[in-house]
Each structure stands twice: as C-alpha cells, then as structure tokens.
C-alpha cells in the first residue's frame, strides 16, 4: 500500500547548523504518527518543510506516490497538508464562524457578497462533524484557550486535509481540554487523516501514537510501531550518543555557601512551587524541553517577567524583583536566549553594547567617563579574545561566537554574583563554543554562581556540577553530576517520574 506521504532524503541546513540530514520515512493514512526528539533534533524544521514554510536543500516529498512541491504554505494546503501551530493563530476580533472560514468565506456574485447564513452553517457543520459544541456566532474572546484551539483545528479541517500536522497542541491546555483534543485527534484519524503529532509528553505519546519516529541531531533514528517500543527504549533512541566524550574531568562535589535561594516560586501562568539553591562557584544546569518553563524562571529571577509569588534570596537577603535593574544592582546578570532580539542592540557598536549594562558604574551624576569606558571595553575585548576590527564596529555583522562574547562581557563588567545563562552557545561555532565553555568554568572558579540553561544535553552534562530538570512548570528532578546521564535527564524532561 502506498504511504500517504513519503519523506525522501530531506536535508536542510542553516548557517552553522545542519538541521536535517538525509531524513526519510513514511506516514500512513489513518494513523497517528508521533514525531519525537530532543530540542534541536530537527522536528520543527521538518514540520515547516511539510507545511511549505521552508524549502528543503535536497530531498523530496511524495503524496500518494506523486511528487509534491510544497512551495508555499498555501500550496501545501492545496496539496492536503493542514498545520496546527503551537501558538494560536486565531483572530480574536472575529467570531468563531469567521475564524473557521477565514479566507474561504462563501460569497455570491456580483460584488462578492458574503453569504452569512451559509458561512455560519458551514462553520457549524464543521464543528458538528468534529463533535464540538461551540456556537459559530460566539465571539472568540468568550472561548477558553482550549476551545480556541479547537476552532483552529476546525479551520484546518475546512480544507479537508489528508495530513494534519500538530505541534505540541496540548502545551497550553488543561487536563479536561486535553482529553477533548485527544478525542478529536482520534476521530480525525478514524476518518483516514494521517496525523503527524509532535509531543513533549511521554504519557500522551503512548496514549495516542500508532507509529513513532525519533529524530536526533537532524538524523532519522527510527520509525517503529508504538506497540513495539517502551519508554526506556524510546529515551535511549532519543539520546543514543556516545556519552562522556566531553565529560568534565573533575567535578566539584564540595559546594560553597548558598548564594541564591529560591523558594516556592510560582506564577499564574505556568510555574509551580519552584525551589532550589545555587551555591558559590557552582555551575547549576537547568534542563528541560523548550516550553517547560526554564526561560520563564530565568526571567523571573532577573525581574523581567510577570509578577510571581514566592521568595528569592541572595546571600540571605530577600530580593524585590520588579525590573531588571533590581536584579542587576543585587548582582544578578542574565544572558538571554535570543542574542539578536534580546541580548544586543544590533545597530550599536561593540563598545556601546559591551558597556550598556554598566553605564551607572562609568558615570558620575549621569555623565559618562568615555575614556574609562573605552579602556574597560578594550580590556574585556582582549580578555575574551573577541575578534573585531575596532570597538566602533557595529555588532550586527559579527559572527555568532563574537556576538555572544560581547553579551557575556557586557555582564562580566558588572562582576556579578550570579550569572544566568540561557542557551549560551546557541548558534555559536565549535571553536568559539569551546572558548565560551572555558570562560564559563573560569568565571565559576572565581566564585560566581552560574545557572545555565541549555537545550544541548552533552554541553549541560559536561559543564554542570548539578542538574535540575524542569517539566511543565515544575522541577521534575535533580541530578548530581555523577548520577546524571542523558537518559535520566531526558526521562525527567519528558515527565517520567522514575528515571530509567
């Protein structure tokens, strides 16, 4: 039997990364095909290629044995691919029916008159066929997030997709809504739709999956019936690296004094009762899947998130964190995950970027000591061997590694007590990566406490003295460097209480 969709030798590279490398597998009609893998395994890239948002460098797609060119999202839709993004894309100024029928409104000629009755009737029919009890005339803001998600799915089913791609559709749903969604997904499957489902939850994977494909580092690792796999095996497939290659030789086990103590930190959106301690000179790794709440936690600790409850103490002193400056003045520094969007002012030069967080230290009554700043900047450029022609050069054109060093230097100028790093080596080439790693170790040895978020497990294992793992807004486990293995971290990250 011809598979519904055949993915053949797809490769796709981005500057600095090979996101997909010769990936091939088939998806069958009437099956739920779960796509799994760690952060950066290539799931999103593959999905976007299927949905026409990216074009593969090499390789091809076939639908029902016919070559299919997904040249644009609209073309992909015409070829029968429906896509549910993780973020809602419904328009909250329109009602349910109009959202479902967006861009496909029934009209009568002349003048392209809207046929409202038909529109709401068609929308209602789609909702009914999906067994959803939502009034097509209800304004969107009156629906819960889960119901809005259903509307989004209804909109995609309007085009009668043969293949439906769902990217972590349950990530913002409550328990009950989740079950409604699962029912819906199964109903779609039973109608013969092929479903590619991306999930970060082990539990739901085994509830839903007929087939599971595992990707790792852009490679296709395995495609097997779900019944043939157990959790331990799945984790091994996802990890499966030669461990220990970059393992840190001498991991400190004797910890210094507690510097940062976080207790019962919760917020209204995601985080629940986060408690942990960070010691002097320690590198504490924070693992977890994207969306597990790591960045949210980091932002709270830096005073740049929404309000939260619970206490954050630095050296036994309670901190009031309402603005990044509060955190900075207390000695906390934060290297955000999005270097270009959050870390740098791209159109400013190296000198100004590097000194941006320490303007107060270089100013008397608001007047800057430019000469002092310049020598400070130059000394840091030298110390971190940032390769630039001049400090007057804009940071925009620097390589990722040099940009990241500028961001790091910006915070080191403040001589922080606590350094929070969020994906410190993302988009950084191998050589610069080793330099950044060495730098982080050096900083820690000087007594700075480092909280390091990374989606790259080998990096986290190699660097950390201790690893916390987050899953859906909670800390799901803590591992010392001696007991931490990729399997254990991945299991905890996917919400497996018992490490394998």
């Amino acid at each position: 039997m011809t598979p519904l969709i055949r993915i053949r030798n797809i490769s796709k590279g981005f500057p600095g990364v090979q996101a997909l490398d010769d990936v091939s597998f088939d998806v069958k009609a009437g099956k739920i095909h779960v796509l799994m893998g760690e952060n950066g395994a290539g799931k999103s890239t593959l999905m976007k290629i299927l949905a026409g948002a990216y074009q593969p460098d090499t390789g091809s797609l076939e639908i029902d044995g016919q070559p299919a060119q997904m040249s644009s999202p609209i073309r992909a839709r015409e070829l029968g691919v429906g896509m549910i993004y993780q973020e809602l894309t419904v328009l909250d100024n329109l009602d349910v029916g109009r959202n479902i029928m967006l861009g496909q409104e029934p009209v009568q000629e002349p003048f392209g008159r809207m046929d409202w009755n038909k529109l709401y009737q068609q929308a209602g029919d789609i909702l009914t066929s999906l067994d959803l009890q939502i009034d097509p005339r209800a304004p969107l803001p009156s629906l819960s997030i889960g119901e809005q998600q259903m509307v989004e799915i209804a909109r995609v089913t309007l085009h009668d997709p043969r293949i439906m791609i769902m990217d972590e559709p349950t990530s913002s749903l409550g328990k009950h809504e989740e079950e409604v969604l699962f029912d819906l997904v199964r109903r779609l499957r039973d109608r013969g739709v092929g479903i590619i489902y991306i999930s970060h939850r082990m539990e739901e994977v085994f509830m839903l999956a007929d087939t599971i494909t595992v990707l790792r580092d852009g490679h296709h690792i395995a495609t097997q019936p779900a019944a043939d796999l157990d959790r331990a095996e799945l984790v091994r497939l996802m990890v499966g690296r030669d461990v220990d290659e970059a393992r840190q030789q001498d991991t400190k086990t004797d910890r210094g004094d507690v510097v940062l103590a976080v207790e019962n930190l919760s917020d209204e959106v995601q985080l629940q009762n986060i408690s942990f301690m960070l010691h002097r000179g320690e590198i504490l790794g924070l693992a977890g899947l994207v969306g597990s709440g790591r960045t949210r936690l980091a932002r709270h600790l830096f005073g740049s998130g929404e309000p939260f409850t619970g206490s954050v103490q630095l050296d036994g002193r309670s901190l009031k964190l309402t603005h990044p400056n509060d955190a900075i003045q207390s000695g906390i520094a934060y290297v955000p995950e999005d270097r270009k969007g959050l870390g740098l002012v791209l159109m400013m030069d190296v000198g100004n970027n590097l000194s941006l967080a320490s303007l107060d230290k270089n100013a008397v009554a608001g007047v800057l000591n430019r000469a002092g700043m310049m020598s400070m900047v130059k000394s840091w450029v030298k110390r971190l061997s940032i390769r630039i022609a001049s400090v007057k050069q804009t940071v925009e054109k620097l390589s990722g590694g040099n940009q990241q060093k500028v961001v790091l230097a910006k915070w080191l100028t403040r001589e922080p007590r606590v350094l929070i790093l969020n994906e410190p080596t993302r988009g950084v080439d191998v050589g610069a990566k080793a330099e950044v790693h060495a730098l982080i170790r050096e900083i820690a040895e000087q007594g700075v406490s480092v909280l390091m978020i990374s989606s790259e497990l080998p990096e986290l294992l190699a660097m950390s003295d201790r690893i916390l793992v987050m899953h859906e807004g909670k800390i799901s486990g803590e591992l010392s460097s001696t007991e931490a293995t990729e399997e254990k971290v991945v299991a905890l990250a996917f919400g497996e209480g018992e490490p394998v």
Partner: protein
Amino acid sequence: MSDRALQQPTGGLLRYVNRNTISEFGVLIAIILLIIGFSFASPFFFTVSNFANIGRQTTLLAITSFAMTFVILSGEIDISIGAIASLSGVVIALLLREQFPMLLAILAGLTVGGLAGLLNGVITVKGKIPSFIVTLGTLSVIQGTALAMTNASTIVFSNDLYRDLFARASLFGIPAPVIFAVVLFFVLNWLLTSTRFGSNIYAVGGGADTARLAGIPVDRVKILVFTLSGVLTAMASLVLTARVGNGQPLGAQGLELDAIAAVVLGGTSFLGGRGALWRTVLGALLIGVLNNGLTLVSIAYYPQLLVKGGIIILAVYIDSLTRGQKS
C-alpha cells in the same frame, strides 16, 4: 455551549461587555445628555431648523470619518485626508468655473482623490513604511499641489445645480447632504459588513500575518482601502465645495484630526480590526452636536479645538485600557 461561553471566568466576555457599555451606550448617552442640556441652555437648540443645521454641519465630518474608519479598521492611518479633500475640492471648483459639465467635474474630483489614496497605499504597502509618516509626506505634497493649482487663491464658481444637489436642496425638510451621507452610510455599511472585501478588512486589521496565511491578499486589501478612503474624502469635498460655493486650497485643513476623533470616539479601535461604521456615525454626531450647541450657547468657538484634542487622547487611552496591556 453559548451558556458555557457566558460563564467563562477568563474575563474575555466581561471585557467585551465593558467595552460595549463604554463605547456604545456611553457615546449615545453623551449625545442625549448634550441634547437635553443644550435644549435648556438655548431656546434655539431644540428646533427642526437647528437639527437640519446640525445634520448639514455634520455630513462633512461624517463622510471623512467613514473614510478614516476603513483605514483604521485595516490597521493603518491616513493623515493626508484634509489635504486630499482640499485638492479634489479645488479640482472640482476649477472645472466648474470653466463651465465643464458637472458630471465631469465630479468624476475628476473623485479620480484625484482616488489617485492620492492609491499613492498612499502603494508607498505604505510596497515600501513597508508606517502609514502615518508616509501620509505626513504626501499631505505636504498634496497640499502644495492644491495651493500651486490655485495660486493659493479661492476658486469661486457658480453652478446652481451642483450647489443644490450637494448642499442647498432638501427633501421633506431633510437637507440634501444629509440624504447623501445617509445613502453613503448604507452603501458603505453594506460593503463593510456584507462583502468579502469588508470581511477581509477586519481580518487584515485583526492580524495581517494570519490573514496572509489564510490566503487573503493583504497588500491588495490595504491599497484598496487607501484608495477608497481617497475617493470618499473627495465625496466629502463635494459637500464642502457645494456648501461654500468655492474651492479653497486650505479649505479642509485639519479635517483628519476631526475624523480620527470621531472614529476613535465612536469606539473603533485605533489598532485595527475592531469597530463599525455606525459607531463612527455616533462619534461624528457627538462632535457635531457639541460644536453646534457650544456655538449656540455662545461659548467661543476655540475651546472646541481643545476639547477635541482632549477627546482623542482620552478615547485612545480608554481604548488601550479596555483592551488590556499587550505584552
């Protein structure tokens, strides 16, 4: 299900209700209160002839506000509206003065308005430049063109048919321009609520990226909206030139401010995607009644400007509060 929707504690619907009460009933109540107040304050206010007056005075604002409503709903702004009205008014006046047929003059005026709008739309959309700064530049160009065409003088024409048709005539005591505006309202309201074009405007204003992914031709919709806005503005200039019997190159200066005030006051969100044409009617009426009443009770004309500016700021502020802070 709709019952459940009503019970959603998320505050979604509650916010919706608040918005409605503030902007729908609020404006209506304000108009009624003003009418009652002015009726007591001036014996000349509550009369048929004065209401006809208010209607006549408000049509110009109402029609330009219709134009602005379309632009704002699509998520853009056009501050060259006053200049466009002046320019097409001048073109019409010049042609009428030279005894060209009325129909040709009208057609020319509307074409000029449409072209100016098209220019705004194309530069905004294709140049990917914010519309407020684009239309600030074109405002200057259009205004200068109107002045250059007339050598900065007023163009007086005499064409009784034209002036009757768009200003002086009345049917059952209803002034012709009011009838014109009402007809226009129904046509435009139909366009906005009953055609795919109107539906697309809401989608584009609500989220251009989503609309684009859904296959809606976002760029074309925006350019069309700007063009329509130009044509409507030219229609407003028909009423203006007919009323005064001439075309003044600076005759409609500042009209954009009144139009924005009427639209936002009516409760159409300046962020796009939310609002309706009837809201704009209420907003324009409120300003019209206020202007008329203040003049009748002999409060100087000029605090009105002050009030108008304050109203814009307040309305916009309330709009942003009721929508909640965006992250």
